[in-house]
């Protein structure tokens, strides 16, 4: 190895392996949100290395775990009506990154964020080119959506929620570049539950003039309990 040559940039592999910590990890996770190509690279590394799982030795699991699982109560029930329509790999990566980012950015210790207080969604672009993570802190109403340039110049990307009544309700405008952050009022927060569809449509600047989506839907995904 040439001592003077700079190291190649292997950040995606390093993140997939779990080598990074602290600020380096936080920076890499932010990059997953902001840069779909980088997010894909991380996922490719996960798949490239998956063959190594073969080499972990099997160890008989204790009976106690099976017994505990057999007593799953209704509080552990999965969200109803979930049917994935997005590439799972992209979704898992996106959600993991979003959760990690959230923990990293918050001053409070991670333990303070109870898992059921987080709702997440992976908004799959209609052309399947990428998945954009979205996350809501149900306690504070803070919502974050990963960066993606969805709207062409002169247009804006608007986020909608579609509940059981099938009527889209506006949630807010997405930033034209970089991640978006918004705070949902209590009444919108109350309407959020697992299985609700989130969608992004392209609208005139300032948002849909009608209160309903008027332009094409460019991304959508279901909300899940994190």
């Amino acid at each position, binding site marked *: 190895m040439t001592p003077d040559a700079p190291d190649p940039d292997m950040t995606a592999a390093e993140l997939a392996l779990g080598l990074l910590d602290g600020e380096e990890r936080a920076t890499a996770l932010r990059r997953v949100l902001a840069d779909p190509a980088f997010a894909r690279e991380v996922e490719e590394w996960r798949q490239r290395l998956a063959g*190594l799982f073969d080499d972990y030795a099997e160890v008989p699991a204790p009976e106690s775990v099976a017994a505990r699982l057999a007593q799953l109560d209704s509080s552990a029930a999965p969200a109803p009506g979930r049917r994935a329509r997005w590439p799972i790999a992209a979704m898992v990566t996106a959600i993991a990154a979003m959760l990690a980012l959230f923990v990293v950015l918050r001053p409070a210790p991670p333990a303070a964020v109870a898992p059921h207080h987080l709702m997440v969604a992976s908004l799959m672009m209609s052309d399947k080119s990428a998945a954009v993570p979205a996350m809501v802190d149900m306690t504070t109403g803070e919502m974050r959506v990963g960066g993606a340039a969805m709207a062409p110049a002169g247009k804006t990307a608007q986020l909608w929620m579609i509940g059981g009544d099938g009527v889209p309700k506006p949630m807010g405008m997405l930033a034209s570049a970089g991640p978006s952050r918004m705070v949902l009022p209590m009444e919108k927060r109350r309407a959020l539950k697992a299985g609700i569809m989130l969608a992004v449509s392209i609208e005139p600047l300032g948002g849909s003039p009608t209160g309903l989506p008027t332009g094409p839907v460019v991304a959508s995904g279901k909300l899940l309990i994190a």
Partner: protein
Amino acid sequence: MRQPTDPAAARARLTEALVRTGQEDRAALQDVYRLTSAKLFGICLRICGERSAAEDVLHDVYLTIWKRAGAYEPGRASPISWLATIARNRAIDWVRARGARPSHPIEEAAMVADTSPDQREVAERDEESRRLHDCLDALDARARDAIRTAFFDGVTYAELAERKNVPLGTMKSIMRRGLLQLRGCVDDA
């Protein structure tokens, strides 16, 4: 439990159990558990390094599987890789949330080897796994060892450098060059 010996049949069975789990079939979750718990417990034990923690993490892993199975898409990822990734990530989360890990891995962890797979395990590797292993074998010993340790033990750069007793910068160089070479080999094959 090491049943179905035919890898394709084993994969089909697990996929089917996982899809049924996604449809909220509790019996199917038990099937997934029966088919995979030894592998996932091996992962948790290896990374956590202690049995009681590994048991808790394993329980948590199957609860996560129960909640997320509906999002598993057959054909996108192999079912066992999907499950193993959850186990590895959960175990790493546990270790990092706790802080330092035991300075000397306990006996059980040492027992969970990552070397000398028996012939049957080698035979069960699919094509992608074989290619990865061939490419790892082609790396120089230090890079191969660094990548394998990072994967199996879920350690950070800092921990890895300490274990291998090399400066952090050197560790990163070995790893990055090794990963670059590995990617070239795997993707070209």
